[in-house]
């Protein structure tokens, strides 16, 4: 089955990439948030890897010798994964294209830059995503990225190659979106955990292979679709990111009898809910698609209402009866927004649960109580 094929592929992936490296292929890492157009990396003949490991407190703690605890556990986990040298993905990257987004990930890029043993390109993401000259700035930087990658890989990046890459990644986006829409009618066919893992797989797997797998999965699922009788309360997960390995909340919600039918998270929906226009000046297209025509992340200027409106639309479209807000400890922008979202959800009588995590295993019991109480609120007890 497709899941097994994918699992096997991911198991072999580090070895596969090590082989590719021997043939001179470059491995280029990015961070989630989906502000780095992977298309450009793909078009250079290099392998794009979106580094998303997290959930495990060990690397996050290991990073405390380098970054104080006021940095979010995801950022510290990135530092820790590379520091501990146990994770092959983190050791094998030849270059990091660092999206300069929030303060935490920016600091990770700076620390690695200071270490001096990794090629780094900082892709500045203008925080005013809808400004007039900001789009120009970002487009310009994408062209500079292209030049850097050409020099680094030794391969020419033609417009044809970019167009081909956009087509491939657009296909990936479409498939992820279509599978999400299947969860709207038949959430029991694809659990939240399965879908999140599928999305995460797309960050590490070979993109062509991934599209093939997603297509097969989609074909398989679409025939099985049927209107489900809603027994479990339908929930939406909102947050910065669920990292690869940070599945406790998803598991606890499932055990407590809740069904998360859609996630609005950093590395998720904002990426695949729209496609990139594949014509005209492709760098402008990419810039517009990645910066402007998408739901902004919380660190962006004037983003709170846009994010709220999008979340409310999802609540309606996916018939959601409760929202779980999952934030990482010390994320100042999300934490501030949680107040706003809680206020607005409360006005509309949509129950909302706010959870915080710093990947500690001690969290589980406390998370469980909160999640169970929340399900009791949404579903009723009697």
């Amino acid at each position, binding site marked *: 089955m497709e899941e097994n094929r994918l699992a096997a592929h991911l198991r072999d992936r580090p070895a596969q990439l090590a082989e590719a490296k021997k043939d001179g292929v470059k491995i280029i890492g990015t961070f989630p948030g989906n502000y780095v157009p992977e298309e450009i990396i793909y078009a250079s003949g290099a392998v794009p890897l979106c580094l998303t490991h997290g959930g495990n407190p060990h690397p996050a703690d290991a990073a405390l010798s380098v970054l*104080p605890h006021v940095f979010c556990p995801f950022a510290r986990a990135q530092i820790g994964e590379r520091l501990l040298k146990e994770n092959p993905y983190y050791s094998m990257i030849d270059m990091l294209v660092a999206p300069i987004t929030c*303060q935490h990930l920016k600091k990770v890029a700076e620390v690695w830059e200071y270490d001096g043993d990794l090629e780094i390109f900082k892709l500045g993401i203008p925080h005013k995503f809808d*400004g007039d000259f900001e789009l120009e700035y970002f487009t310009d930087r994408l062209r500079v990225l292209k030049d850097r990658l050409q020099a680094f890989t030794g391969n020419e990046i033609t417009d044809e190659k970019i167009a081909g890459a956009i087509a491939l990644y657009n296909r990936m986006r479409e498939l992820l979106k279509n599978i999400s829409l299947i969860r709207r009618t038949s959430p029991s066919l694809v659990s939240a955990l399965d879908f999140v893992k599928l999305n995460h797989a797309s960050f590490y797997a070979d993109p062509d292979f991934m599209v093939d797998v997603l297509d097969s999965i989609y074909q398989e699922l679409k025939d099985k679709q049927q209107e489900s009788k809603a027994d479990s309360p339908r929930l939406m997960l909102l947050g910065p990111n669920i990292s690869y390995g940070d599945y406790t909340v998803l598991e606890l919600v499932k055990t407590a009898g809740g069904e998360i039918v859609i996630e609005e998270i950093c590395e998720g929906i904002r990426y695949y809910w729209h496609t990139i226009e594949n014509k005209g000046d492709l760098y402008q297209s990419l810039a517009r698609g990645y910066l402007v025509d998408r739901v902004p992340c919380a660190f962006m*200027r*004037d983003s709170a209402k846009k994010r709220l409106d999008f979340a409310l639309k999802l609540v309606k479209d996916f018939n959601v009866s409760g929202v779980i807000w999952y934030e990482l400890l010390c994320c100042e922008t999300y934490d501030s927004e949680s107040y706003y979202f809680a206020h607005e959800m409360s006005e509309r009588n949509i129950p909302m649960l706010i959870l915080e995590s710093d990947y500690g295993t001690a969290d589980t019991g406390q998370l469980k109580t909160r999640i169970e109480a929340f399900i009791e609120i949404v579903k009723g007890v009697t």
Partner: protein
Amino acid sequence: MIELLELCGFEKQEIEAELPRIEKAFNRLGITTEDIERGKQRLNKYYDVELKGIRKVFRLCVREVVSAVLAREEGKKKIIYGFMAPGWEIIGSALVSKSSEVYAANLSWAFQVVLGCVFGKIVPILEAAEKKWLKAGVVTHCANVKTFLGLIVSESVPRPDMLITSGSLCETAPKTLDLLHELYGIPVCCYDTCQDRELSDYLDGTKRAIDMSAKSLRRLTERIQEVVGFEITNDMLREVMDARGGLDRGIRNIRRLIENSDPLPIRAANDNLWTILNMLTLSIDDLPDAIDATNTAYAELQERVDKGLGVVEKGAPRILAMLFAQHADPRLEHLAGELGIAIVASDIGLAVPYDGATEDPYVEISMYLRGSLSTSLPRRIPLIVEGCKRLKVDGVLDRFHAGCRFVSGDAPLLKDAIEKEIGIPVLLLEWENFDPRIYKHEEYKRRLEVFKTMMVKKPA
């Protein structure tokens, strides 16, 4: 109250004229007679109020606070607050110089001096913010933003017509403004730059960042013009910048004198006052008072230096303390002095060399991006190491402001670098630059004492 105002540099005539409005403002802020007593004690205990120049700075801070509280009822038709907005002191200054109907304040700084340092009463403001979206707890929101939000939501200051901030130094401030807009309907505007400078092409990257900041500032000015109803010309900005030249020089001279003097001629807590003075949006008519304060203080300090008078013994260990002095609570600086440690400088005076001579005032304002606080980690560490060497300090106190992800992230690696390259001890003190509740006397005393013993004076 009169004694307090005298300690704050008010002369008899001014006290007579201003007392009603000062009392009105203080009442509005909930300042009691007990607080006034405490204020006098604190001024005498922590600050060198025997220096006229120091008293003059307190006067300007008190005036700022009073004007802010009473702005609306004193006829200001347009009120704009800026926060964490480098360059706002110039634009705001231009606004108030042009029109007496506009009140433009660089919010929170003067309040921290008056409510925090003088009266020791900033905590209720912080708590007001914590009741909203800047909650207390492990998330460690910066108390500077809490002060700003707290002043607005507690209605200690009138509701403004516009709020301004920058994302160049702070992520929390723009988000707070976004929420103030959504939840309170206050118009807001941010200016930004991209923090994507790479070590390998730092100067080009700096130029790119400065250009973007300048563009963003120009757009900000257009928005402000819509609110105030008049144009903000380049000439207006230039006029302010020229007038402020004397202030920049005055503060620089004082700090240079302190860096180069042994014994330390003035207690470290006072350093905060120059930082704040620099940020007040004084009109062109009022700027001379600020310049006068610096010149007076400089002369008085020079006199002390000439006489060999110091607040710490001669030959005391000299240290660089990272970031500014505490804005709302002088106890740490005071403690260091009591223990015989001379804080001779902070890193806010350090800047990356950049030759960007320009006619454009927006580009010039954006030069703040050269400063240590705006510099990315790989470039900032060597900058500070160089600074330590130049200042010939015996140690570094990195009281890293935990609420600020911008600067606190550099602390551990900075410590390693300094200890390795220069061999002087670095004390890492997790700190909150704007929150007095963090102060733990016994713990800090113990650590500073140990730190002092680790500092070996090199033979002359």
